[in-house]
């Protein structure tokens, strides 16, 4: 069986740009696997999504979706996508748009009703898309992408504009399809959300993949710990301690990122016996991603 996505050595440079947007990027997503593409703005995530969806063609390297060329209509039968900044034809109704996606993908029109119920748009089926809220439009995009049961679903910032409850339901809907073999490639700025749903995170920085592993593995590799304590001590007291990477001082609280939390805790309690509300936490996925991208730029 072909991988759902197999990108090998993808390189792409925008006209006039000094550096390539993507530089020898390889990424594989297997059936049923959920992979999050993370990285700072301008890292090349959306450019890579463009390659996967056939909107762009690499200068070098190959991109195959289910073994096929993503620029071909036949391959796109296997591909679903929720893209950023999409407005629908405003005079078509929700149902017409989802049924239309079904018909164009060669699946029965009747499948639309179930998907509309799945994403919670069944009550709005007769509403014209021009009258939907941002969150409703996002769900409509998802419904259109899901109606053909794609083998690979590409989600570019899919939960942008959704509130916390809607985001939770969004991911719950998708998780139900993992067992059916649907693979997901997603980008999101909400890193912890990616960590919760993805089997693997692929971190892109400067157009290169700088990490590609499970969220637990990525955070586990990071020795950084965050020490947070309410104290009257100034930041300068701990800034020069060995292992301290970053110190923030906000409203009577010191937040110290360090590879040696014991030294920080000892010093704070020695200098300020009234210090309280002390917490030592492992690195978050967001910090691990930042560390991976920092290593790249260092």
């Amino acid at each position: 069986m072909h991988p759902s996505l197999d990108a090998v050595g993808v390189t792409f440079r925008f006209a006039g740009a000094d550096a390539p947007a993507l530089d020898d990027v390889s990424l594989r997503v297997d059936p049923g696997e959920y992979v999050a593409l993370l990285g700072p703005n301008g890292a090349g995530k959306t450019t890579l999504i463009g390659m996967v969806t056939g909107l762009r063609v690499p200068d070098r390297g190959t991109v195959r979706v289910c073994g096929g060329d993503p620029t071909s209509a036949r391959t796109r039968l296997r591909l679903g996508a929720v893209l950023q900044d999409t407005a629908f034809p405003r005079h078509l109704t929700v149902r017409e748009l989802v049924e239309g996606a079904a018909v164009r993908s060669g699946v029965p029109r009747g499948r639309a009703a179930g998907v509309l119920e799945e994403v919670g748009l069944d009550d709005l089926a007769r509403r014209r898309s021009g009258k939907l809220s941002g969150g409703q439009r996002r769900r409509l995009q998802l419904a259109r992408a899901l109606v053909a049961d794609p083998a690979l679903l590409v989600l570019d910032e899919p939960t942008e504009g959704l509130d916390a409850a809607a985001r939770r339901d969004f991911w719950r809907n998708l998780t139900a399809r993992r067992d059916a073999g649907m693979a997901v490639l997603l980008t999101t700025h909400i890193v912890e959300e990616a960590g919760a749903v993805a089997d693997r995170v692929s971190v892109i920085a400067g157009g290169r993949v700088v990490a590609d592993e499970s969220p637990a593995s990525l955070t586990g590799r990071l020795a950084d710990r965050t020490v947070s304590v309410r104290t009257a001590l100034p930041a300068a007291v701990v800034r020069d301690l060995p292992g301290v990477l970053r110190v923030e001082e906000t409203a009577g609280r010191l937040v110290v990122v360090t590879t040696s939390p014991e030294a920080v805790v000892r010093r704070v309690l020695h200098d300020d016996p009234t210090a309280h509300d002390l917490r030592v936490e492992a690195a978050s996925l967001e910090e691990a991603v930042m560390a991976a991208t920092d290593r790249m730029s260092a």
Partner: protein
Amino acid sequence: MTTVDTPVTAATAATATRAPSTLALLGAEVRDELKQVYREPAALFFSVLMPVAFFAFFSAMFGGETAGVGGLPVGTTMLATFGAYGVLGATMLTPGIGLAEERERGWLDVVKVSPVPVPLTLLAKVVATLPYCVGILGAMTATAAALGVLRIGVGQWLLLLAALLVGSLPFALIGLAVGARASGNATTAVLNAFVIPMAIAGGLWFPLEMLPGWMGSVAQFLPTYHLSRLALGPLEGGAATGSIGHAAYLLGFAVVAGAVAAVAYRRPAR
């Protein structure tokens, strides 16, 4: 949003979906285009009412004169010239502006990642203007009949309609070429700036004899002139031999316009 146990099967995701036929895809695209057209009645004003109003105005003034081709009333020959104006406006503006707006709103990217080949979507936009064209010529015909200046058989009328529809293809391609690169507002402005001067210089509003002599010379090179001459063919009856030349000119122009549209569309937006 609710969570529902949807009957998703591994087979549906893992096995190839049967591709719909080209005709089914085109039908779906045309259906959606038509729905949008008819749910936006304001568009009808500019596309249908304006050219018909112009036709009614000039027909009321000059339509009864028998200076038309083959001694026909001018009002009847104006079906060809004003019909050409109306049809070229509809086929050039509607698909071009529609493409520009869809591109701006990101919908074209959705189409590109769907199983529908983009040329089919563009073709659907042109096909969806055909009811407009029939409506325009039908309304002009009714107006001419009401004014008592209509002398045309059903067969001639159908040939006239066919000539207008086929002859409007290059204009649709020009509209798509502009719509592939410019914003919606810019496309509207550019195409309107093209339509009206080309209509006047091509003799669609006034006979070339009424215009300065140099304009008559220029007109020979304009596609609008050849569209109106092609449309006049069915009204001229036996004197229609020149139609082949006009059709050939329009075909050549369509090839050029199609090449420009293809380059405009394919040129990556970097």
